[in-house]
């Protein structure tokens, strides 16, 4: 599903809802929109000047360009330095300017501490509402107060796809695309993707064999296809394998409204994934991990299927990843596959580091940057809002001390919707408490 470009992501969020709760959500979203528009940030006009601007658009890289921000939106991207009247100038000479990075596949907003620390909303223990895991929906679970949001923002990330890490069932539920701003309303798009693991680890939890896993998958999608043309009502008897709630979710998948992200590594598994399109022609597929993807890169490219990967994975961790190599990203790209990089949650900064390593292993630098910005935006159908520096897009912008893929460089200023974000996090506060400790008092007295 791609929503038409509209003024605000908040309105967009409302437009994108095609199911129940529409009225309630619309009202609340509009309320938030009104509050937001009255805020200080939206009145600001900012000109970021002099930087090396990576637009991630057809304008490419502009040396010494200017990005004009007005009311939270990018107004213009110019070659050369120009500061119109009424604009506050931020001099980025000698710096790099890029769109805010996008967490390609995360659990952000769903987890604080992963293990033995209370409810972790990125995991589901099977519940009766779902028999195959498709129904679970993280949009209700996002905690914008999570300290991970601030930590991640400091690394130059401004938005992210977030979803469940595990359900123990066939599908890992429906993910959302969120902003990493300080606003309560962070969901830019709900039902942004459905995830299913068809690798060895997926088979592990579904019958302990691909022979069961794939039949369960086909059966689920067949039932969804049926329900697509025969909508279930509460009074209607339903004897399908998937639950009613699963069916509702999977209809969006078989109709192509919601992309289906499929973890697969072995070449045969990847080809099986591509073959799903023969039966379910509207599926919007993307591959996740795809360790051995380079072996069938031509087929992936021909099917126009994007890949989300961790390019550092080069070990035969399982028997379905024997071909894992640091060359995977470069080889997939050479075949014409569109890449998104970064499957991280607590340590988002590993994504640009590993993208840089992929560059050292043959991936063009511009492609590595695209894999952290415009490509994930396209994958989740939010490229009309984020992912590049173009007029009309949300002003999610980062000023870097230098090349953002270089481990020794860092984000210096982060803007979300045109607002300059705090560069403090819980981590920087811990650092500062102990770096500048007043030894005459217990540490708890300095903050």
């Amino acid at each position, binding site marked *: 599903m791609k929503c038409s470009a509209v003024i605000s992501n908040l309105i967009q969020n409302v437009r994108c809802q095609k199911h129940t709760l529409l009225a309630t959500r619309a009202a609340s979203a509009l309320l938030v929109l009104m509050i937001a528009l009255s805020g200080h940030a939206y009145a600001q006009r900012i000109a970021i000047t002099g930087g090396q601007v990576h637009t991630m658009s057809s304008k490419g890289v502009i040396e010494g360009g200017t990005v004009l921000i007005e009311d939270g939106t990018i107004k213009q991207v110019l070659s050369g330095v120009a500061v119109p009247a009424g604009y506050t100038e931020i001099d980025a000479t000698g710096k790099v300017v890029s769109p805010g990075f996008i967490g390609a596949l995360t659990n952000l907003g769903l987890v*604080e*501490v*992963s*293990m*033995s*620390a209370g409810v972790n909303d990125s995991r589901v223990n099977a519940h009766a509402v779902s028999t195959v895991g498709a129904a679970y929906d993280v949009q209700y679970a996002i905690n914008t107060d999570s300290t*991970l949001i601030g930590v991640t923002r400091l690394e130059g990330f401004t938005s992210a796809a977030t979803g469940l890490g595990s359900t123990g069932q066939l599908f890992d539920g429906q993910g959302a695309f969120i902003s990493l701003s300080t606003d309560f309303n962070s969901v830019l798009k709900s039902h942004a993707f459905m995830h299913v693991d068809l690798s060895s680890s997926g088979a592990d939890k579904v019958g302990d064999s691909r022979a069961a896993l794939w039949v369960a998958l086909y059966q689920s999608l067949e039932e969804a296809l049926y329900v697509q043309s025969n909508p279930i009502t509460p009074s209607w008897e339903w004897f399908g394998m998937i639950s009613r709630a699963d069916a509702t979710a999977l209809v969006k998948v078989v109709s192509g409204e919601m992309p289906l992200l499929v973890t697969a590594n072995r070449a045969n598994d990847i080809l099986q994934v591509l073959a799903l399109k023969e039966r379910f022609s509207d599926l919007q597929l993307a591959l996740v991990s795809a360790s*051995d993807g380079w*072996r069938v890169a031509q087929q992936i490219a021909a099917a126009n299927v994007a890949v989300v990967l961790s390019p*550092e*994975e*080069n*070990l*035969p*961790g*399982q*028997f379905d*990843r*024997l*071909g*894992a*190599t*640091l*060359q995977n990203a470069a080889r997939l790209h050479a075949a014409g596959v569109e890449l998104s990089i970064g499957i991280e949650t*607590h*340590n988002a*900064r*590993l994504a640009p*580091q590993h993208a*840089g*390593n992929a*560059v*050292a*292993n043959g991936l063009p630098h511009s492609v590595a940057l695209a894999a952290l910005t415009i490509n994930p935006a396209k994958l989740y159908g939010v490229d009309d809002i984020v992912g590049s520096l173009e007029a009309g897009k949300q002003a999610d912008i980062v000023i870097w001390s230098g090349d953002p*893929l*270089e*481990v*020794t*460089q*860092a984000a210096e200023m982060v803007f979300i919707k045109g607002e300059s974000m705090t560069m403090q996090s819980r*981590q*920087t506060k*811990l*650092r500062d408490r*102990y*770096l500048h400790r007043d030894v005459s008092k217990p*540490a708890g007295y300095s903050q």
Partner: protein
Amino acid sequence: MYTLSTPKLLLSLVVSSLLLSACSDNESAKQIALDKNNPFPSTYQRIESAPIVITNVTILDGIGNKIEEGEVLLKNGKISAFGIGVPVPPDAIEIDGTGKWLTPGIIDNHSHLGVYASPGTSSHADGNEMTGPVTAEVWAEHSLWPQDPGFGRALAGGVTSLQILPGSANLFGGRSVVVKNLPSRTMQDMKFPEAPYGIKMACGENPKRVYGEKGGPMTRMANVAGYRKAWIEAQAYQQTWSDYEAGAKDGKAPMRDLRLETLAGVLDGDIIVHMHCYRADEMAIMMDVMKEFNYQIGTFHHAVEAYKIADKLAENNVCSAMWADWWGFKMEAYDGIRENVPMVHQAGACAIVHSDDAIGIQRLNQEAAKAWSDGVRAGIDISQADAWRWLSANPAKSLGIFEHTGSIEKGKNADVVLWSGDPFSSYTQAEKVFIDGAMVYDRADPESWPVSDFELGQIAQGDAK
């Protein structure tokens, strides 16, 4: 950092063997005794190589110095000379280092390669003896599978030596082993000949979680009770042997106890303590336990909160082996910060960058680079030359092998890495890796890339990994 005391345990075994042995020859008896104390001796042999000289290269010697446009001569397995104007023997192989950097080989003092090998099947889970909280009797070297493809990957990342540790489920997890990263047929072929043993201990959540419902410990207080109880038993064991040595009782040797033998080895100063510990308050308690029983903790591993007590770590001469940025995967890792390593260094304590990970071990130079640059941005002024201590010299000290490796100094083992450029960069790669003076990895030559038995005959055998 470690001065290994005269090994009392060894002495006691010598005595016992003398008494028990039928041999009248003192030399034979001693031989038996040594074998008893070192029953799995190293069979490592360096690869012979012609002298190698690397010229016009930027050198970080690993102990704080940087030399531009220098030369390094590797000969007979050792660093024969380095600096400016090094005389080159006529038979030396010359490698042009223009634009490149040379550093000591990276030493990872926290790895589970071989004991949690790839593929990560349950049949390869050989690192945690989760059958009881005190398993000081197990030795990681008996689990180590030298065909783990991870060794070769780590070599391509410039790792020349590494410590393989048992996992952290137990209060006492067992002995570690230090190996040279030259994948071979047997563990003994890789074993670092001069390295002392280490013991893995663990604080905090892991023992609690594993044993909380299996008879305990289920709390941190029971963890500490568990360490103290074990040390008391070890002291008693030491006493039994010293009584015996002093000729007490009827002259019959006490029965060996593998668990207590290892613990007594720690109290004797022969075995180095490597303690998994995240929280500052727990590390402080462990340093008190250390004083109570008069042993030395060599290194706190992970030490996510080391920055909070860096002064105390310096005072107590305990190293911290840390990640650049891992945090939040459990409560005791919640207070992780990016500047942990440089803050520990700044306090004058021994800072180490470790991996604990088969992927992370391949780019430890970048992990150090992140920590270094985060420190600089926070106002902690450390040179790159000093920061390299975190990767070679300090881990070598923590393993008790610094007199052999871990820095570029004349006479040390020629364990060095030639990098394609500044190793504090995402784009720089290890081009050539040397162990004991032989080139054991050359990025430009696929024939030099190690392929483990496991990978032979599989898809992508010999591919660039």
